[in-house]
């Protein structure tokens, strides 16, 4: 394929628009990981077949897009440009939609969103509460393009920012725009991107070498799928951002470090890089300027610590991904010992928009005032994966500074099943739990850190009142013990001690002195660990101790788990009032611990019960109780 010029870019864009105008509508089927797991591709195939059979192929086209965000309601389909959104699609619905909506012009009410407030149907996507309060910058193309077609991206204005940067801006002008924007790293640390680039440029100048540029797509936080969704939905936004960044810092070679566990994202990224090369948007003399830049992929193997900057660069050299000491900055000595800029997927996806609309425009979005210093606020938007005990799980993009309450209750639709929100966990495993009474906190880098948690890469896990916070702390510490690379003693040994104490507490063997011990050890790990991962590792214990001390005390002093989670402190019983002797639980009990004739009260033999909770899960009459 021949290289394209800036004029070609406009032509491709116009051609793309006129192609889509030829159709009455485009049927955008979400093919993000969640929807694919829910058979989205089968639905797409059926839709294509149905259109063919009914001779509608020239009127309608089917496009498989990246993640639309409303994962809880998948599989989804958007009829564009009119905006009708169909949810929870099943194979049988395909012909109904084609017959009723496309042929008869009557949108299918039964497949539309039902408002939980007044139970009315909401036909248009833009009117659904979940989408209403979002502001899409990073996810600007989500659900709107075929991520495997570069022309679709160009059709939405893609690569215009790169063209503008290369033809009309000097590298330091780009740096200035990024600095003006006040953008801080979206990977979790919140370090100002402009300052990072600037230090890399100056250390590269000192040593007279070309720096490297890396995109961190090693999303290691369990409960977070933002980066994966961005790459799956819009890989070119990341490539374009990286190319602009490379021009600004003078890099010739860039890498994306992405987990092998994300096969769909990996495949789409590979295709996108190849398409960009074919168009000459990566490679030698881009847009016939003197700027040359190419991107290669490094496939990471799953390890939480490998997402840490120095560890990631070590892994890129084919070695075990372990961190270096903190005093060596990767902007001075990173990949292969050369100055390296590392930013996360989301940060890179922001760059084209900052160049297109200007740093000033960007700096006005979000919280605080970043005009003097990026440290004085959090500008822009942030993508969160909103999951856990919440009605509308999915991927949301909101301006920084919005309150947790708005995210959880308005966008997320609140905690379902009549339960109460107990805490929101942010910041990944080494983040913290924010209690429900602090939900009015604005979500920005500094407020979350002050509250004992952190922004992290953007996982928001909502927990209802049936979750035990001591068990939650134990879960995260167990994870961190496994994932600690073991290089420095405070993290390696300290976490094991915390794990032992938490296991004791959840087993009902805790002692009052354990609380003090937990805080002491946590503080030591925090201060003495080698990398930031170790430094933040005690957060789960510290934040739950801070906000949920009563729950720890209940375990230690009363030997009770108030939430009814910790196995050693609970027992399952069957309520006389609710049990009607249906015989379902004895059938499912793996240990044959439940006895009782049909239509008679069932009882659990506590000596046999392993507290697996299956009886409670299968009982339709809420007869199994936890004490």
């Amino acid at each position, binding site marked *: 394929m021949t290289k394209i010029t800036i004029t070609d870019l406009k032509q491709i864009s116009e051609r793309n628009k006129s192609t889509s105008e030829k159709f009455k509508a485009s049927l955008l089927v979400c093919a993000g990981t969640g929807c694919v797991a829910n058979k989205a591709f089968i639905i797409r195939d059926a839709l294509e077949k149905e259109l063919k059979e009914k001779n509608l192929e020239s009127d309608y086209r089917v496009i498989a897009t990246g993640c639309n965000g409303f994962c809880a309601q998948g599989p989804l389909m958007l009829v564009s440009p009119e905006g009708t959104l169909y949810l929870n699609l099943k194979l049988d619905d395909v012909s109904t939609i084609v017959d009723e909506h496309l042929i008869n012009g009557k949108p299918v009410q039964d497949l539309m969103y039902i408002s939980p407030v007044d139970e009315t149907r909401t036909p248009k996507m833009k009117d659904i509460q979940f989408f209403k309060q979002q502001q899409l910058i990073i996810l600007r193309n989500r659900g709107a393009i075929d991520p495997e077609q570069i022309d679709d991206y160009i059709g939405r204005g893609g690569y215009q920012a790169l063209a503008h940067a290369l033809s009309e801006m000097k590298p330091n002008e780009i740096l200035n725009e990024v600095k003006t924007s006040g953008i801080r790293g979206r990977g979790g640390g919140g370090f100002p991107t402009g300052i990072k680039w600037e230090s890399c440029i100056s250390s590269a100048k000192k040593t007279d070498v070309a720096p490297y540029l890396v995109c961190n797509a090693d999303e290691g936080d369990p409960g977070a799928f933002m980066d994966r969704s961005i790459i799956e939905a819009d890989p070119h936004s990341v490539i374009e951002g990286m190319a602009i960044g490379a021009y600004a810092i003078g890099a010739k070679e860039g890498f994306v470090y992405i987990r092998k566990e994300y096969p769909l994202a990996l495949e789409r990224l590979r295709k996108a890089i190849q398409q960009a090369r074919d168009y000459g948007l990566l490679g030698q003399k881009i847009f016939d300027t003197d700027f040359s830049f190419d991107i290669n992929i490094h496939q990471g193997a799953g390890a939480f610590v490998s997402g840490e900057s120095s560890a990631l660069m070590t892994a890129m050299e084919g070695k075990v991904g372990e961190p270096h000491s903190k005093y060596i900055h990767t902007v001075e000595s990173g990949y292969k010992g050369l100055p390296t800029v590392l930013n996360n997927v989301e940060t890179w996806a922001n760059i084209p928009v900052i160049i297109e609309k200007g740093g000033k425009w960007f700096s006005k979005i979000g919280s605080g005032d970043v005009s003097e210093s990026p440290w004085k606020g959090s500008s822009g938007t942030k993508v969160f994966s909103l999951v856990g005990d919440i009605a509308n799980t999915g991927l949301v993009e909101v301006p920084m500074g919005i309150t947790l309450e708005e995210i959880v209750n308005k966008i997320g639709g609140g905690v379902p099943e009549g339960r109460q929100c107990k805490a929101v966990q942010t910041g990944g495993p080494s983040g913290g739990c924010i209690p429900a009474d602090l939900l009015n906190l604005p979500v920005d880098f500094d407020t979350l850190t002050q509250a004992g948690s952190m922004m992290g890469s953007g996982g928001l896990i909502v927990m209802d009142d049936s979750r035990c916070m001591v068990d939650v702390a134990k879960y995260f510490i167990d994870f961190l013990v496994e994932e600690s690379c073991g290089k420095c003693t405070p993290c390696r040994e300290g976490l094991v001690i915390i794990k032992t104490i938490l296991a004791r507490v959840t087993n009902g063997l805790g002692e009052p002195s354990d609380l003090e011990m937990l805080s002491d050890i946590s503080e030591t790990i925090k201060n003495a660990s080698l990398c930031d991962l170790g430094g933040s590792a005690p957060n789960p214990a510290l934040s739950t101790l801070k906000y949920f001390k009563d729950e720890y005390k209940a375990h230690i002093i009363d030997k009770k788990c108030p939430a009814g989670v910790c196995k050693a402190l609970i027992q399952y019983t069957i309520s006389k009032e609710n049990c009607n002797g249906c015989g379902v639980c004895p059938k499912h009990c793996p240990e044959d611990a439940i006895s009782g004739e049909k239509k008679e009260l069932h009882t659990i033999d506590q000596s046999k019960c392993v507290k*697996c909770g299956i009886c409670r899960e299968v009982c339709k009459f809420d007869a199994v109780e936890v004490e």
Partner: protein
Amino acid sequence: MKTDKVQSIIKKWNGDPNYAIEMLQDIQSEFRYIPKEVIEEISESTGIPRTQLYYLATFYKAFSLKPRGEHEIQVCTGTTCYVKGAFRILESLQRKCGLSDGETTDDLQYTLKYVRCLGCCSLAPVISLDDAIIGKAKSSTIEGLLARKVGEVDTK
């Protein structure tokens, strides 16, 4: 036969030591483990020290020095799945199959392991059988679901 495959994998990555992890990933998917003799061979062909290869092969959970089963059942224990009861599911599967984490059935058919986050948090709790994802899993129904899925896989 083995040598051919190993050599083609090394060639795919140009024998570049920077891509040692990628080579091991390919070896793991080809043989379902990292055989000792393959480590020797990579080391000789690329000059990567054996210690480094063993370090990699034992550091990452994705690699195994013992053969894994033809099918892999993974229970996601990421935060969301944990909140939604993943460990109860893991325990019932372990009880059913008589396997601990990472263990393989004697006939080398199935390996059961838990993983941290498969990235479909909105479907939590999630388990996967090879590439197929089973969302909103329940301990009480998981056995039947798996049996059906296993059937599908076998008939392929």
